[in-house]
């Protein structure tokens, strides 16, 4: 069985690489990108199961990046990370098309469960 492949996108370098290492420790195959350009480049050469994207990225928003990535991988499940989407009002502001939104600092167990739930939500992967 192949590993679950996760793309992590955040301009906070130490955060994204440490998160990547911790997810690898839990059995995921991860790639990390610090900006939207690198994220799109990775998404064009790799098939991911889930993308975990910070809502505030340089030059583009997380929502914009989600739309661009979905042009490449339409069914990709997106989990947003932010400091400000813990309540319903915050979530409504993000719009549609994402699987989950987690507030930073993120508990790794919650991110782990969200990634698994996202993967299980693919009909063919149930």
């Amino acid at each position, binding site marked *: 069985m192949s590993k679950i492949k996760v793309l992590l996108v955040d*301009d*906070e370098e*130490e*955060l994204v690489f*440490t*998160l990547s*290492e*911790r997810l690898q*420790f839990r059995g995921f195959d991860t790639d990390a990108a610090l*900006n939207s350009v690198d994220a799109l480049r990775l998404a064009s050469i790799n098939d991911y199961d889930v993308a975990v994207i910070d809502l*505030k990225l*340089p*030059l583009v928003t997380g929502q914009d990046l989600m739309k661009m990535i979905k042009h490449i991988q339409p069914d990709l499940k997106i989990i947003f990370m932010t*400091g400000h989407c813990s309540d319903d009002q915050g979530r409504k502001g993000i719009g549609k098309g994402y699987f989950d939104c987690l507030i*930073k*600092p*993120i508990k*790794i167990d919650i991110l782990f469960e969200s990634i698994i739930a996202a993967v299980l939500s693919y009909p063919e992967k149930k």
Partner: protein
Amino acid sequence: MSVENSLQQQFTFVEKITAGVTHDMNNVLAVINEYSGLLEDQIYLAENGAQLNLDKLQSISERLSNQVVRGRNLMKSLNKFAHETDQNVSAFDLNEMLENLILLCNRFALAQQIELKSNSTNSKIVIVHKAFALKQLVFNVLITLFEQINSPSEILVSSIPNGSQTKIVIELHPNSSTLSIDNFSIFDESAEKLSVLIEYHFSDADASIDLLLPNNFNNPQDL
């Protein structure tokens, strides 16, 4: 400008600064959270028979300390900012004010892939002015500049004593964006109130904005 508008602009300024710093602080906490989790993972490995990697622990410890320093600097800057909202004329170190402003503006610069740096000397440049209003003007000019930049750039902010007159110079390298002076005209009124003259030097390669401060050492009551 009405008193109401002026107050509204001050609130917006404080709101933006606070939002930027709290966002940065949240990122500091998020990074500390991940390093803490990485330590837990190392402990889990050791409990299950793996040898503790002391080099890795040392590295995590150093990176945790760096984040604490980063957080402390942010809080110091915010605290200093909170104590500078006095509207009165006072004597202050312009270099220190600009250093503080750069730290508070960093989040907005990074959002546009701009490296924001101070280019001032370590020496003090003591001026007599309205510190909060001047900081607000420089902040507004910087934010307006950031919003017009659409490719990775570097902005240097420096203070240059020029006889009895001092100027703040904001330099953009390279200038690959189409800057328009019209976008800055909204600050003419507030600059005039502070007796600050703003000069724009935009070329295809580089751009600079000079804020010429008034020669007010002997007449601060004019401000």
